[in-house]
């Protein structure tokens, strides 16, 4: 708890914020009573006794008579009949009816609906009652997505959503989005692996929406859920709907949050003297002369830092801390005619790159994003509704002219002793690795501005006059994204590292290259993207005779996506659904998508993607009635169906042959006595594949849902099996001698993907006012390549990729390190005759990694360690397992939340560059665990590094189980403590709520891998680190 008296900062913030919004918090006025009418007043509160603002009170049978509660939950309604029935409704709460019976004051406590059972689930092209959902769909409370201070909500998915495997590979502002898959990877082609993300039904980027804009978040996983998306549904679909206004007085929420950030983990490297000593030790060990004797002594003695530097390059280019800030404001409200919701968000983030205070310009990373969204619903007539959404964002990024990831890469691999950051005399030295500090601070800056507008115009028409329950809808949307860059680049004079000092003590330094020394200027813009979307649909939704619930949908859509390519990308399709529920017990559903893609020739253009799903709500059976108070939900469901994919990686109009003139592939040639007759290459490109058609995925899903103790415990388990056929791929078995520049495409590959998801939610409201909720999610997906046109002589051997997951890691199997006993002649590297000969390197020595001979040209061990001995090791770099668990407790005004998320079944093979001094001290640093290695004095097998060589050891740097590391980790993703001021206080200042909170993100990480943050995909640790943060926020509600 934070006592207000003590928190001056809070009071100050409050005062400012209040001033800013006082105009909005206009006092509610109560009209004079009409004597002919019977006036009822009262107060509407929730189960905690807090007022409900915007609850609607309506006279039953006459919807012209209604009232809405004000900021204090008070209402006044004039009813013509003192015996009327009042209906109290509020979204998320159970509808309550009260007979007036002459009363003047009616106070009502509304109970929260058991949301698990009653609320509507956002499904493809519509909503369904939760109990009748038979497809596999995860829904997430948007509050559960606000678990970090990150710009991108994709970073908040891991562990929060069952069915999503997500991992964040970088912390670079603007490029720190997570990679995610729904139910894992089921294709080996670059394209066609990403889930479809629909925001308000339109394909949009998940990373640039603010979490505050989100009203609902659903993940469609099986064929029943996504078949209607046909062509685009193969990889699962995420449906996000943005907030819409509700009938009621204006409601305002303002939130401000500021965070300090720091890298989750930076690798620890040894300094200059130790590094050089290690080089010398290694040289001596391999029979050569030491090189650095004098340098080591002088570096240790700090004799002349210009000549004998010891630089921590990461420190030189980065700050220890950065920060980000976020302010959001939300306004919503409305009447039965017009409902509105406005959300504005500002996000500001600084990176950890440093700047040179001597330069007036600033290349450090700064990112600002402003989001706005305005969603308006207008009831033109009682049966006609118009929706109008406009949203968008503006994102500005200031950064270095050099690639930030390259700067980090270099900062991590620059060695500490080659030259100082800057000589004491001011010159900047660099070698072939250049000078990363200069790259970061001396080469100018650039500003990139990106903006996007997103619109949706939609008309809903009730067609009850034709038949009850029929509706029609037409939607139109256009989105436009564009960006431009202003680059102010410059280059400094660069010098060769000083070799010595002359007699006068001046540094002997020679110029390497002349710089430009003034800021240049260039601008560039990109076409960006533009998409138009048109949709029309008819839907039917009716329950007959209380028992037969019918749902139907027929929808047509068309999309035109233009990214500046020669022609825009086009798709069109039809989708439909028929669902029938008998007595809330038996559910059957049929869905289909029928889609066309321009990628295929006429006749192969359209694909039909059907799915069926069946469900049995056991708890609705009469025989379950006795135990229904304990088991409130038991549902079994199954689905089977097909979805498709039409996207080819880098190939369009595959039925046409092409001519290529791609310079990167074909280059140019010049003739002429003066080399001045220049022609860029041109050649045969792609082959026409006239029968290329849909990639199809057959998906089966079995689901089990259990609710216990009136929904206090909710468990959902799904098992899935996906078979993807006809995967587009470039043929893999055609030899180079065929001379094809591009390998022909074909519907060839097959991948199988299986797994399970579990989601568990616990909600418990105790009498004492303590509220406790816990969530747990678990997602596991494992895929297997069934067919990928692998070379005939490889299939079935230990080298085969077929039969393993997509992107399976391969390498040798290590058998420990060679010992002296393994050699007949150590000097000449002659091994005992019973050991396999090593062909990877000219000779091995004790302490080198020993590999197992498992294969040969004919598939049998051949007494040689060669390429035929490689095999699948570990699994894949992308995790197969993601899980999360969290707990939220609130008591009176205090709330506490904690969320852990973890990944498992993820591996990586460390690059040979992590082997100390294998790059001869030219680049790559030495980790502090360098002493954990095989040496003549420590001939241990239980070491991190094998024997070291000065230079590449082509035996030890092979991908092998020796370097295979389990990158599983568990993170304390979010830790949050909040305090809401009691309504006594907020009432007095005419607010409906104030909450302050502190939050920590990524505070703890548990992993068996210690050298760097295991979430980075890097094999060397050289990457912009992910960030942890500590933040403070305040939230005002009016």
């Amino acid at each position: 708890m934070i006592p207000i008296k003590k928190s001056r900062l809070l009071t100050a913030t409050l005062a400012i914020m209040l001033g800013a919004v006082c105009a909005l918090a206009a006092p509610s006025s109560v009209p004079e009573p009409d004597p002919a009418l019977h006036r009822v007043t009262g107060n509407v509160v929730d189960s905690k006794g807090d007022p409900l603002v915007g609850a609607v009170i309506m006279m039953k049978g006459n919807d012209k008579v209604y009232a809405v509660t004000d900021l204090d939950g008070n209402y006044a309604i004039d009813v013509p009949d003192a015996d009327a029935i009042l209906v109290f409704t509020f979204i998320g709460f159970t509808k309550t009816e009260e007979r007036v019976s002459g009363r003047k004051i009616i106070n009502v406590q509304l109970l929260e609906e058991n949301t698990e059972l009653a609320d509507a689930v956002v499904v493809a092209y519509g909503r369904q009652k939760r109990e009748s959902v038979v497809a596999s769909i995860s829904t997430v409370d948007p509050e559960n997505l606000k678990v970090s201070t990150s710009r991108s909500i994709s970073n908040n998915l891991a562990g929060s959503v069952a069915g999503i495997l997500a991992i964040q590979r970088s912390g670079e502002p603007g490029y720190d989005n997570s990679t995610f898959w729904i139910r894992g990877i089921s294709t080996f082609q670059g394209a066609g692996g990403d889930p479809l993300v629909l925001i308000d039904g339109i394909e949009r980027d998940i990373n640039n929406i603010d979490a505050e804009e989100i009203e609902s978040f659903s993940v469609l996983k099986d064929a029943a859920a996504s078949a209607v998306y046909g062509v685009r549904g193969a990889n699962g679909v995420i449906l996000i709907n943005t907030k819409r206004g509700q009938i009621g007085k204006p409601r305002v929420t303002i939130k401000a949050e500021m965070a300090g950030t720091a890298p989750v983990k930076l690798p620890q490297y040894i300094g200059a003297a130790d590094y050089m000593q290690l080089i010398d030790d290694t040289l001596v060990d391999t029979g050569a002369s030491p090189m650095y004797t004098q340098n080591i002594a002088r570096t240790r003695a700090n004799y002349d830092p210009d000549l004998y530097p010891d630089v921590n390059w990461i420190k030189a280019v980065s700050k220890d801390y950065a920060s980000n800030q976020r302010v959001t404001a939300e306004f919503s409200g409305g009447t039965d005619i017009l409902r509105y919701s406005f959300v504005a968000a500002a996000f500001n983030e600084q990176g950890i790159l440093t700047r040179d205070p001597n330069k007036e310009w600033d290349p450090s990373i700064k990112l600002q994003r402003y989001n706005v969204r305005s969603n308006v619903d207008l009831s033109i007539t009682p049966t006609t509704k118009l929706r109008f959404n406009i949203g968008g964002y503006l994102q500005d990024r200031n950064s270095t002219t050099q690639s930030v990831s390259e700067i980090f890469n270099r900062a991590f691999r620059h060695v500490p002793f080659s030259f100082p950051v800057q000589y004491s005399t001011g010159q900047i030295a660099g070698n072939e690795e250049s000078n990363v500090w200069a790259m970061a601070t001396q080469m100018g800056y650039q500003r990139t501005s990106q903006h996007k507008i997103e619109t949706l115009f939609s008309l809903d028409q009730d067609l009850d006059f034709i038949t009850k329950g029929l509706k029609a809808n037409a939607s139109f949307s256009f989105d436009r994204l564009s960006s431009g860059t202003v680059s102010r680049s410059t280059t400094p004079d660069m010098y060769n590292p000083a070799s010595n000092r002359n007699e006068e003590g001046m540094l002997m330094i020679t110029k390497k290259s002349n710089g430009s020394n003034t800021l240049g200027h260039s601008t560039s813009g990109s076409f960006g993207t533009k998409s138009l979307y048109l949709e029309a649909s008819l839907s039917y939704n009716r329950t007959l005779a209380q028992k037969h619930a019918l749902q139907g949908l027929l929808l047509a859509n068309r999309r035109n996506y233009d990214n500046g390519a020669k022609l825009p990308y086009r798709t069109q399709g039809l989708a439909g659904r028929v669902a029938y529920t008998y007595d809330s017990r038996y559910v059957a559903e049929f869905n289909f998508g029928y889609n066309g893609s321009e990628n295929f020739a006429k006749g192969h253009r359209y694909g039909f993607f059907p799915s069926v799903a069946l469900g049995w709500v056991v708890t609705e059976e009469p025989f379950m009635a006795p135990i229904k108070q304990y088991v409130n939900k038991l549902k079994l469901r199954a689905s089977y169906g097909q979805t498709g994919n039409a996207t080819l990686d880098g190939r369009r109009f595959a039925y046409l042959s092409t001519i290529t003139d791609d310079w990167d592939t074909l280059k140019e040639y010049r003739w002429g006595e003066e080399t001045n007759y220049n022609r860029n290459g041109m050649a045969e490109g792609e082959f026409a594949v006239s029968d290329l058609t849909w990639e199809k995925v057959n998906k089966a899903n079995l689901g089990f849902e259990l609710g216990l103790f009136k929904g206090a415990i909710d468990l959902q388990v799904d098992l899935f099996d996906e078979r993807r056929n006809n995967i587009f791929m470039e043929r893999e078995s055609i030899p180079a001698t065929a001379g094809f520049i591009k390998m022909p495409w074909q519907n060839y590959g097959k991948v199988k993907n299986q797994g399970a998801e579990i989601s568990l939610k616990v909600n418990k409201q105790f009498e004492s006012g303590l509220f406790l909720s816990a969530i747990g999610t678990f997602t596991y997906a494992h895929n297997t390549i069934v067919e990928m046109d692998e070379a005939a002589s490889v299939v079935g051997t230990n080298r085969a990729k077929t039969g393993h997951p997509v992107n399976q890691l391969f390498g040798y199997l290590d058998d420990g390190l060679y010992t002296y006993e393994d050699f007949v002649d150590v000097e000449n590297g002659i091994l005992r005759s019973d050991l396999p000969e090593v062909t990877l390197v000219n000779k091995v020595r004790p302490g080198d990694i020993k590999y197992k001979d498992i294969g040969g040209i004919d598939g049998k061990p051949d007494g040689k360690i060669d390429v035929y001995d490689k095999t699948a090791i570990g699994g894949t770099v992308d995790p197969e397992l993601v899980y999360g668990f969290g707990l939220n407790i609130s008591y009176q005004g205090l709330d506490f939340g904690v969320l852990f998320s973890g990944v498992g079944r993820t591996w990586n093979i460390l690059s040979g560059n992590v082997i100390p001094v294998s790059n001869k001290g030219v680049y790559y640093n030495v980790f502090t665990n360098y002493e954990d290695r095989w040496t003549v004095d420590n001939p241990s097998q239980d070491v991190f590094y094998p024997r070291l060589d000065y230079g590449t050891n082509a035996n030890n740097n092979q991908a092998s189980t020796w370097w295979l590391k389990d990158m599983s980790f568990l993170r304390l993703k979010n830790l949050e403590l909040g305090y809401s001021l009691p309504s006594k206080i907020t009432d007095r200042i005419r607010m409906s709520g104030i909450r302050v909170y502190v939050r920590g993100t990524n505070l703890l990480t548990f992993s068996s891998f210690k050298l760097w943050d295991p979430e980075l995909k890097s094999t060397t640790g050289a990457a912009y680190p992910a960030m942890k943060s500590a933040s403070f926020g305040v939230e005002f509600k009016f």
Partner: protein
Amino acid sequence: MKLKYILIGILALLGAMSCDSYLDKQPDDQLTIETVFENRTNMERWLAYIYTGIPKYYIYDGPDAIADELAPSVGWESQGFKAILYQNGNWTPSQPGVITYWQTLPKLIRQAYIFIQNAKPLEDVSETEVNYMKAECRFMIAYYHALLVMNYGSIPMMKEAVVGTNASDMMIKQQKFYEVVDWIAEELEETAEQLPNYYDDASKYGRATALWCYAIRARLLTFAASPLVNGNPAMQNVRNIDGENIFSAEFDPERWRVAADANKTLITKAEEAGHAIYVEMADGDIDPFQSYQNAVMLRYNQGNTEIIIPRTYDDAGYFDRQANPRSMGGAGAIGITQNLVDAFFMKNGLVPITGYNSDGSPIINAASGYTETGFSTTNEVAKTTWIYADKSTTTESKSEFNHVIVPSGTFNMYCNREPRFYISVLYNEQYHFGKRMHGSQNWYTNFFSGGEDGGPSHDSPSAGYLIRKRVDPSAIPSDSKGTYIKRQGIVYRLAEAYLSYAECLLEYAIAKGTYAQAQAEIIKHVNKIRERAGIPVYGTESGDIPIPTDPLVMRDLVRRERRVELNCEYGNRWYDLRRWNEAEKVLNGNYYGMNTLADKDHRDDFYKRTRYQTRKFISYWWPIPQDDIDKNINLVQIPDWN
């Protein structure tokens, strides 16, 4: 009623969207094979791509570096320099490498066939021109096959562009070496008749001519006559999928005669077309310094008629940067081996070092006057306009003919060597024109440890030498200056034809026992090289070096002449070492250089032969990439790589 209209509207919309024409569109700018060849520029672009396969001349991670010639800094290994991996024997068929012809050339061959099939005369492309272009394609097909067969030994022939995409149709098998060679030679001979000796249009310089055909034919046939492939018992384990031996078991001396004829044809045709050994004169005599330097620096239109096949698009400026000392903005790391340093003749035309002891120490030919102890006490002077050796001269004094080539105080190893030595080798403490022009405090190379051009930085010569040949001596990389930047690569120059011709004659004579009769013709062609090199010729006149009576001694001299003359050019040494069956001996074991760990305070220590690398030789043939061995079940890997 209003609602009905809305409904009708929505239904109409649904109806309108179902029409298929929405997806009925195609790119309007898509070229097809047919339309490409309706346009002159596109035809030339097609041809340009086919030409890109001609190996680059200014390349330092290529064949020169895996022979005993170029020595890129061994520190560059960590920056992906493949040649160093190969030198160390850390090489497997699954790693792409220094030579990637297997992956790249079939693509070009296929495009050449497509050109031949589809090109036709156009309004602005005459029938003659189309026929020339088709013949150029035919030349390229043959040339690329020649490159493949000289590197991989056992290759399938690509005699057409595969139709269709059925993988099993493409599993072609390897052919016998001589079947491939004879087919290429025949193709080249026929193509030569379809092509002119030169093009009148200056912009067409660099396009294949009849002389190109003769040159590649001569080079290939010389290779094919050589001991590696001509009756080599060690090659009898190389077979194709049918179990046929790829290489002939019988030595056929006629192969040498055929090769000699091919070289003779080339020489005759080239001389008829006005090609000659490039010379510059100084005060009435051949200036060997300028002549040898500029034979590989100047373009044809600058008077360098020695060039027979140019690579008109090459990257000399980058090469200069990598080769020049670090302190003047270069990368200072393209070194050369001590082997090459030792190979040069003395000024008196004699051989200084005849071999090595097992500890790497040289066996010195005392008669040559060579010594590698101590430092010189007098200036060595030569008559030349070559200004790059003498600190006392600058550009302005180019007319002087009395240059100090080697000032006193130079390590004796580098004294009294032939002119080609000074054009080819940049040794420690040598005056450096570029460093002086750059404004360095020190005008001499400083390869000592801690020196501005030396270690421990990896932008330094590992063996203590940098390459000087083919490097613009006036280049100052830090300022992007230099006078030869726009030079072209040389694929074939006339000197090679003379040396090959001499060698073929000699080998045929050895096989037939007719050395005495052939001697004069052999000597004549070797001497053409030595005259330009400015060293005594073989002969009977006074001052001449006596002609060896033992043909095997003569063989050593011819080979050495070739090694020196063509050093560090276009991988010639890599092919020669292999075809002479010497690679296993030369490219294996310890490699020596100067002691680059010595600092300036220990000057004498620097000039000690020191091992800097141990090499391992694996095979005479480049491995077929594992990928293709896996895919094409009809291919057989060279046994060394299995």
